[in-house]
C-alpha cells in the first residue's frame, strides 16, 4: 500500500471512531431529553399551586412583606446563572453566560452592584478564568437536578435577600437560565424572582380568568407569606434547573447530530480521495510494469542483434 493511501485509510478510521462516539452521545442525549421533560411536567402541579397560593396571599391581604415590596433605591442585586457541568453541547453554556453578561451590564447601568451565584462547571470556569468574584457556586448535578439541589441553592440566596443591604445583603434576585421551548428551540432568558412583581404572577395564575376568593389565613397572612416565599423561590429555582437540564440535553443532541453528520461527510470525501489515491497507485504500477517490460524487450531485442 502506498504512503498516501495509508494516510487516508488511517484518517478514515479515526473519523469513523469519532462518529461512533458522537452518534452514541446524540442518542443518549435524545433519551435524556424525554426524561428531563417528564420531570419538568411532574414539577408543574406543585409550581402552579404554589404560584396560586402566593398570588392569593399577596393580593388578598394588605401585608407589607419585605420580599414583595421593592426597595426604594436598590443598591445590590444577586444574579443566579445556570450553566452546564459538561461541554459538547454547542453554544448552550456560552449563550447563558452571554445573557448573564447582558443582565449584569443592565443592572450596572441602573447603578446596582451585582453578586454572582453560579451553577455548573462551565460558568465557574468562565468566571474563574477571568478572575471575577463569584459569591457562591454549585456543580455536579446539572444533568439531573433534584429538589434538594434547588433547596441548597435557594438557602444562601434567601439569606442574603433577608439581610440588610448595608450588611452585604441584596435587594433583588435575578435568575438566568435556558428556557426549554421545544426540541429545536431553547432560549437563554433572565427573570426577576424577588421582589415579586405581582403583575407577572397574577398574569401567570389568572390566565384562565379565575377570580381569587378571599382567603382565611392560618395562622396569619404574614406568617403564611413568610413560609410561602422561600418555598416559592425554591420552586422557581427547581423549575429553572429542570428546564435548563432539558435544554442542555437538547443542545447536546443537536450539537452531536451535526458532529455526526459532519463526520459522515468527512468520511465520504476522505474515501473519495483514498479511492483516487488507490487508482493512481494502480495506474502507476501498471505503467511501471509496462515500462519495465518495454525496457526489457528493448534490451533483449538489442542483444539478439
Amino acid at each position: 500500500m502506498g504512503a498516501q493511501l495509508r494516510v487516508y485509510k488511517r484518517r478514515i478510521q479515526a473519523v469513523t471512531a469519532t462518529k461512533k462516539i458522537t452518534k452514541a452521545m446524540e442518542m443518549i442525549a435524545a433519551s435524556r431529553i424525554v426524561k428531563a421533560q417528564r420531570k419538568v411536567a411532574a414539577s408543574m402541579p406543585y409550581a402552579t399551586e404554589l404560584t396560586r397560593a402566593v398570588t392569593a396571599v399577596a393580593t388578598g391581604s394588605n401585608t407589607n412583606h419585605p420580599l414583595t415590596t421593592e426597595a426604594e433605591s436598590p443598591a445590590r442585586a444577586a444574579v443566579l446563572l445556570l450553566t452546564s457541568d459538561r461541554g459538547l453541547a454547542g453554544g448552550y453554556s456560552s449563550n447563558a453566560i452571554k445573557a448573564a453578561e447582558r443582565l449584569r451590564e443592565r443592572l450596572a447601568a441602573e447603578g446596582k452592584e451585582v453578586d454572582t451565584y453560579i451553577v455548573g462547571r462551565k460558568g465557574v470556569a468562565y468566571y474563574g478564568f477571568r478572575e471575577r468574584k463569584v459569591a457562591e457556586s454549585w456543580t455536579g448535578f446539572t444533568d439531573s437536578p433534584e429538589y434538594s439541589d434547588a433547596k441548597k441553592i435557594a438557602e444562601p440566596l434567601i439569606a442574603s435577600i433577608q439581610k440588610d443591604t448595608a450588611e452585604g445583603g441584596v435587594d433583588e434576585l435575578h435568575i438566568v437560565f435556558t428556557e426549554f421551548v421545544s426540541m429545536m428551540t431553547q432560549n437563554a432568558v433572565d427573570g426577576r424572582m424577588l421582589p415579586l412583581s405581582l403583575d407577572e404572577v397574577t398574569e401567570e395564575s389568572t390566565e384562565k380568568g379565575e377570580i381569587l376568593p378571599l382567603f382565611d389565613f392560618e395562622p396569619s397572612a404574614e406568617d403564611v407569606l413568610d413560609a410561602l416565599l422561600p418555598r416559592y423561590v425554591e420552586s422557581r429555582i427547581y423549575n429553572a434547573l429542570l428546564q435548563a437540564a432539558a435544554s442542555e440535553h437538547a443542545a447536546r443532541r443537536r450539537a452531536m447530530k451535526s458532529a455526526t453528520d459532519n463526520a459522515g461527510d468527512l468520511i465520504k470525501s476522505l474515501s473519495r480521495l483514498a479511492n483516487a489515491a488507490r487508482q493512481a497507485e494502480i495506474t502507476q504500477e501498471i505503467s511501471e510494469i509496462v515500462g519495465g517490460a518495454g525496457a526489457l524487450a528493448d534490451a533483449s531485442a538489442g542483444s539478439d542483434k
Partner: protein
Amino acid sequence: MAAELHVELVAADRSVWSGEATLVVARTTSGDIGVMPGHQPLLGVLESGPVTIRTSDGGTVVAAVHGGFISFADNKLSLLAEIAELADEIDVQRAERALERAKSDTDAGAERRADVRLRAVAAH
C-alpha cells in the same frame, strides 16, 4: 350523594394523590384543622405530620407530609409539600431503622422525618 371536595396532594417533584373526598384533616401551625366541602377559602401553613383524607367511597388515605401548605377554594383542596408520601408507600422497617439511627446521631431533622412517617403508618 354527599357533598365532595376535590383533593390534590402534590409534592415538589410529583403529584402524590388526587381524588374526591368528604373530609380532610391536617395539622397546621395553629392546630389540627378539618376541611369539609363548602369550607370557607383557606390558606394555612402545615406542620410535619400525617394528613388524613376520607375519600368519598368510604376509604381512608393517610399521607406523611413534611411541611408545606394547605389551600382550599371552590371546593378544591390542595396540599402542597416538599416531601409527601402515602402511608402505603412507607417502609416501616426502614423508617424505624432511620429513627434509631437519627436518635443515636442526634439528627433532629432526620428524627422528625422518620417519626412523621411512623405516625402516618400508625394512623393508617
